[in-house]
């Protein structure tokens, strides 16, 4: 058994979770924000899954799987007797349909790109085929997936929400409205959705995993200002504030021992960084980029956000495999940083722009960065804009510097490769790509490809290669990794279950399937 159930867990009870934003969609092929990510996880299942509260893979709808020697053929044996919420039994046909659907351009899935390694993907994207040639139904309970190239992360991909199994007849019935009428195989079913007010989940009594979920239901109340949600939590009306503890209340909560005891802290696969556009002078000069790296007082920035983070030295967060322990990065050294621009012939300093998303605390962090850089003669003008405008400027390569906060990379799955391709590799450096540094080093790209071609994602050589990739990247300093944000959340007194479930790295903010109430 990969997971030992909590002996104290008792079934029954419902909980209330609040969110500021409305739930966008519950269609697993489309939902891609951290709010609906965990909801979809509880409504749907994929072939693969994670051990609750960890980043460890375990089989999901697949009972078992086999990988061919060269790592390009995956054969999954499905569980028997798994039914969708509508009562129909799930088969291999459904798995194939689901993978075809998510890659079909008409679905407009933002996750389609994850499946690029499956054979026939290119034909589907180009509109030449309706169906992935690499996905074959062997028999109703067996499915075989052939990759066009080895992909060490493929099992993680199959654990993504995008790979969730959906029933064809329901999708076709609702068409584009499947997102508000989701039917899956998950631990919960959707009972009610009142737009702008609440989404209610009900326990799936026929869930294929025994004993879970514990809760009879979960009510998500949306449109709640985080600060109000916390007030309600303090009044006992809310069990989990989905948006976490608002900065304005953090100090108050931590100063009260009773409340502080209910705060849960955990790492997350997140890095906050500044991109330096390597195509824009003077950031095209390494010395300048190094100077910026050395000038940032990360401790002060962390102090400004009430110490809710740890300083970062490299792109990967510490809990990610492949993280280089002991890598010093660029230490804070104002004097050293002052000397650098002179090397690049910019002794008098220069003026540049820093783009930042306009929600607290990002503009504050930008101002701290601004002050740090002014110490070494770099005058920074801040462009505090709406998210969409920052992404646009970053994609178009117009932004010399961007503070990533609010749009930052939170890993889709716990694998080092997830922090490279689109944001540091050549693939994302094109116009509109998410590689806002526009950093593109063929040699490093080659190493990354090599690392991804391993069959075993956890093999030490592979992790070694990734460690090397990120060290090489840092040698070129296209980024200033600033901090790795810690996740702080709170729960009501009646909530039970291990703390890890509340800071579940893949199921933020709560793993609804495994938490329970104590009264």
């Amino acid at each position: 058994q990969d997971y030992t159930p909590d002996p104290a867990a008792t079934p029954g009870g419902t909980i209330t979770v609040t969110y500021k934003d409305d739930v966008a969609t519950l269609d697993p092929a489309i939902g891609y924000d951290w709010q609906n990510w965990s909801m979809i996880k509880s409504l749907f299942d994929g072939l693969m899954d994670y051990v609750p509260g960890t980043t460890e893979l375990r089989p999901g709808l697949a009972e078992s799987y086999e990988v061919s020697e060269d790592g390009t053929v995956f054969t999954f044996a499905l569980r028997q007797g798994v039914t969708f919420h509508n009562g129909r039994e799930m088969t291999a046909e459904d798995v194939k349909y689901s993978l075809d659907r998510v890659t079909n351009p008409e679905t407009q899935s933002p996750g389609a790109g994850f499946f690029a390694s499956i054979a026939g993907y290119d034909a589907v994207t180009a509109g030449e085929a309706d169906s992935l040639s690499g996905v074959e139904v062997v028999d109703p309970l067996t499915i075989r997936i052939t990759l066009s190239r080895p992909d060490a992360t493929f099992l993680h991909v199959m654990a993504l929400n995008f790979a969730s199994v959906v029933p064809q007849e329901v999708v076709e019935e609702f068409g584009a409205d499947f997102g508000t009428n989701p039917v899956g195989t998950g631990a919960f079913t959707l009972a009610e959705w009142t737009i702008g007010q609440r989404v209610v989940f009900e326990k799936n009594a026929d869930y294929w995993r025994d004993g879970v979920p514990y809760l009879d239901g979960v009510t998500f109340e949306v449109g709640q200002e985080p600060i109000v949600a916390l007030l309600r939590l303090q009044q006992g009306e809310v069990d989990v504030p989905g948006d976490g503890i608002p900065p304005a209340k953090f100090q108050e909560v931590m100063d009260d021992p009773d409340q502080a005891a209910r705060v849960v802290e955990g790492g997350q696969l997140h890095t906050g960084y500044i991109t330096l556009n390597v195509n824009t002078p003077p950031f095209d000069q390494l010395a300048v980029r190094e100077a910026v790296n050395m000038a940032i007082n990360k401790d002060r920035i962390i102090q400004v956000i009430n110490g809710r983070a740890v300083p970062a030295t490299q792109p990967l967060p510490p809990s990610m495999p492949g993280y280089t322990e002991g890598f010093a990065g660029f230490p804070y050294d104002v004097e050293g940083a002052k000397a650098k621009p002179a090397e690049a012939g910019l002794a008098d300093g220069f003026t540049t722009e820093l783009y930042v998303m306009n929600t607290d605390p990002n503009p504050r962090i930008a101002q701290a960065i601004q002050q740090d850089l002014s110490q070494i003669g770099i005058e920074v003008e801040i462009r505090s804009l709406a998210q969409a405008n920052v992404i646009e400027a970053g994609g178009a390569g117009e932004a010399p510097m961007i503070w990533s906060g609010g749009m930052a990379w939170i890993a889709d799955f716990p694998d080092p490769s997830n922090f490279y391709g689109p944001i540091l590799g050549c693939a994302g450096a094109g116009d509109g790509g998410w590689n806002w540094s526009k950093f593109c080093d063929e040699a490093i790209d080659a190493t990354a490809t090599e690392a991804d071609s391993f069959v075993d994602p956890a093999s030490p050589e592979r992790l070694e290669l990734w460690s090397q990739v990120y060290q090489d990247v840092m040698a070129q300093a296209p980024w200033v990794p600033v901090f790795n944000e810690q996740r702080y959340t709170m729960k009501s007194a009646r909530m039970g279950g291990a703390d890890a479930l509340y800071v579940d790295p893949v199921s933020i903010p709560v793993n609804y399937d495994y938490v329970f109430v104590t009264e």
Partner: protein
Amino acid sequence: MADTSPIPLHAPAAPAGVLRRLMRRKLALFGLAIIVAVVGGAILAPWIVRYGPNEQLFDGLTLQGAPMPPGGDFLLGTDLLGRDLFARMLYGARTSLIIGVVANGAALIIGTLVGLTAGFLRGWVGAVLMRFTDLMMAFPALLLAICLAAIFQPSLWIVAMVIALVNWVQTARVVYTETTSLAEREFIAAERTLGASGSRILFRHILPHLVPTLIVWGTLGISVTVLLEATLSFLGVGVQPPTPSWGNIIFENQTYFQAAPWLVFIPGAAILLLALAFNLVGDALRDVLDPTQRGRD
């Protein structure tokens, strides 16, 4: 305003009289004192403050990152980045004066001009102007502001312009209504028979009668525009950080109204005082300038 004739009919210059009469009103003096203090503070800020407005002071934050309350080293406390609030308030007065007085004033002028012309001209010019006003009124002002500010790079003057461009509409409506009824008055017909040109009638005879309304709208508009600027900052299209303005100090810190109330209530009080001060002076000015009001309540 009433004394618009170029003929020096009187030896004693009118302005001096107006000023003297203004001076006699205690409330007006109080208002004037506040305005002078704010403007003076804004101009002389560099010589008054001990810290720069954007200086993030090491002592300005506790180890946990909490701001300092007023008193002690920092007269009005510090903000969430450890900056001296007093310095930010003084420098912020510059921005807020530009928004609340210049942009709001511009909006008032545009609104008045549009409302006046439309109300007076009737015909197709008036119709077109009023339909345009109706359209602008139906248009969500905030959206327009966001789009304009996003299309141009946001800066103080762009923001001021945007605010002026979206805020004139209500004034125009109100002025329009008043102008149409004024234009019906007999003394306007009398002016016409004298051969007075349209612009003369508008500016010499109708405009002065709008002064009381304009004072109410103008002074209430100060708070509204200063807060609108802050809303724009909040939406990412306003005055860019770290430039302080009273409005954006409030908006940056509004969720902290319990943890650090001074960051919200001090700038809030400042906006209120400024608007009040202008109102006091405006009210007094109206009474002094309007001969028909003298002796009445």
